[in-house]
């Protein structure tokens, strides 16, 4: 009997305490307390959720239009892709990107120098471009990436699209069967 009484008492006390805390929390829900919360949120939503990104869009589109729109590179006046996004290369005359599932993003536009050098002999065989020339082009590309990363902030790497574009530019004849030259090649931006 006594034990049960004790339990009852404990329960009553616990319930009483919980009720008190709930009442206290409820008493906080006064218009005086709530209205600043709501107002501050609406203001911040306008400032940080709407004005801030839109102003940056306006500035970005005007001052850095190339970067703001995804670093789209053109070839013979036509948009052929972003220099930051890997694209598919199947022809044996081209350097190939990493397989999509090999990198973290699946879109890695770069390969390591080792990977680039190891592709040279096959590309040379398929395209007839001398290995030495290919090697020099790869080295120039590495050098360029190194400079754009202030020399010390990235390991050596090769941009596959830029390297292949350079190949097509220098050996137009060799790539005439692979690279399409039709005129209806335009850039579409969707929303």
């Amino acid at each position, binding site marked *: 009997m006594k034990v049960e009484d004790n339990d009852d008492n404990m329960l009553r006390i616990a319930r009483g305490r919980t009720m008190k805390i709930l009442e206290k929390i409820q008493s906080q829900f006064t218009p005086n307390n709530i209205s600043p*919360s709501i107002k501050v949120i609406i203001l911040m939503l306008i400032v940080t959720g709407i004005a801030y990104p839109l102003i*940056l869009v306006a500035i970005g589109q005007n001052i*850095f239009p190339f970067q703001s729109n995804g670093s789209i590179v053109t070839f013979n006046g036509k948009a052929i892709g972003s220099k930051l996004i890997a694209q598919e290369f199947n022809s044996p005359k081209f350097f190939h990107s990493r397989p999509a599932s090999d990198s973290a993003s699946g879109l890695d536009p770069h390969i390591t120098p080792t990977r680039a050098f190891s592709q040279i002999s096959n590309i040379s065989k398929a395209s007839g471009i001398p290995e030495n020339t290919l090697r020099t082009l790869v080295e120039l590309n590495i050098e360029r990436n190194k400079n*754009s990363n202030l020399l*010390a*902030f*990235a*390991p050596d790497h090769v941009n596959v699209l830029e390297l292949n574009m350079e190949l097509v530019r220098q050996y137009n004849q060799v790539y005439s069967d692979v690279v399409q030259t039709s005129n209806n090649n335009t850039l579409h931006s969707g929303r």
Partner: protein
Amino acid sequence: MTCVDPIVQTSVLFGGSIGMAIIFGLYIARMISYEMRPLEKPLARVEKGFFRLVGIDVNRQMTWKEYLFALVFTDGIVMVFIFIIFLIQGMLPTATPGLKGLSIDLAFNTAASFITNTDLQHYAGDQQLSILTQMIAITFVMFVAPASAMAAGFAFIRAFIRKNFGLGNFYVDFTRNILTLLLPVSFVSSLFLIYMGVPQTLNSSVTIDKTLEGHNQSFTIGPVGSLESIKMLGHNGGGFFGANSAHPFENPNGFTNIYETFLILIIPLAFPIAYAKLVGRGRGIAILIAMLIGFGIMFAIALTAQSGPKGLETRFGSFGTLLFTISSIATNTGATNSLLGGLSPNAVISLFLGMFVQAIPGAAGVGMMTMIVYVLLTLFIVGLMVGKTPEYMSMKISPKDIKLAVFIFLLHPTLILIPTVTAFTTGNAQGVLGREVQGQKITPFGYTQALYEYTSAAANNGSDYLGTSANTPFWNWSTGLVMLLGRFVPLGLMLGIAGSFTAKDRKEVIEPIKTEGPLFISVLVIMTFLLTALTFFPFIIIGPFSMLGS
């Protein structure tokens, strides 16, 4: 050459971020103690306009309960707002045709995830969110969450300045944090990131009819620059894209990688410096050094093995990946520039360590408060050893303070281990892990992924292995709940400690145990690691430690 680059990167990063943290720390100290800031006049004019619009009395001090209520209530409204946006985004006028709202459990998970500064993502932002949602829900809450935590940190530090200094006013701190710190720094950083190649447009996709070889290609784009800077500066970590900072549009090159890491480190390191300015140079610096030692240990463990190349991005390499990831996880930002699966087990162990301790250096505000909790626990234990009444800054640490501190400490393993056990016993972990469960046997890697998910959720970190594969009702509800509890319960208890300390008498005597100097720093670091190790070692032995040999 291979040796020089990492040294240059490390010294530029740490020289830069500690230098910037000193500037920010002194500025934050002025915000905490309401002293004149640089550019006080124009800043005050802007703030005054806001305060008038919001209708708050700037000079009204709040008790810890009022402060907590204002914080939880404000965050609560924001959470409900973004929850609704996630549900109805398909019906909003500017949405891409065909884009649907998130399911209720995924919307709850995502709302909880962003308001708690966790940014665990069970969705792929580039495929499942509209441009409008990325702006008015994601970017917006990325300011709200860190501003709330920093405000709590301000109130906490005020408790130690002097008796009855007052804890401040939440709305004032919140507004000032956004308007005079997070917003201007994000703005300038966004411009820099856009210049480096991060897109900033209202278009949602780009389609290329013919690539160089003649294929059709399309990819997602949007206002990434404005999101990216506050994602880093505010320790959010939730990417615009599913691939997070591994995506070339979020982190285009090695230099942005270092810059984003720099943004991550500034504010957590600025807090102890503000503390040093306000409550004693030695004490603040002791905390800063303890944080840096912990961070150094994490980094050293991770560097013992080479990560990748599978799962890593070529432009960062192993070192750049680790520099970014360790900084991001140590500050509970949770952004990743690689697949966690591509990291070595050594690196994964160090990531766990950072999330277990939560204070080396931890997220803005929260990391600092957690470190003070460790200081109180250390003083209590050391005080017992030498038979002295534990005191901090000549204030008696009462039994109530210790109870609250222990509660904060024990809540963390509870929120990690109980859900992990539940996930395995109910079969929900096995369902998601798939091939990592061979027959009835769960591999160490499979177990590590589930443990990591809840550790990340409880620490409000946000990095994870599972990603969109954890988009099931069980994982969404459970991690959502863990994130909310892991955020607001410790925050409430810490403000409780602040409420207790602000009313304490300060004796004009020397502290019985000095809370500065090399001896205290070593004791603090050892105690922090010891407490953490005792709690978690059994669980990481069967996880990442067992991956070491395989």
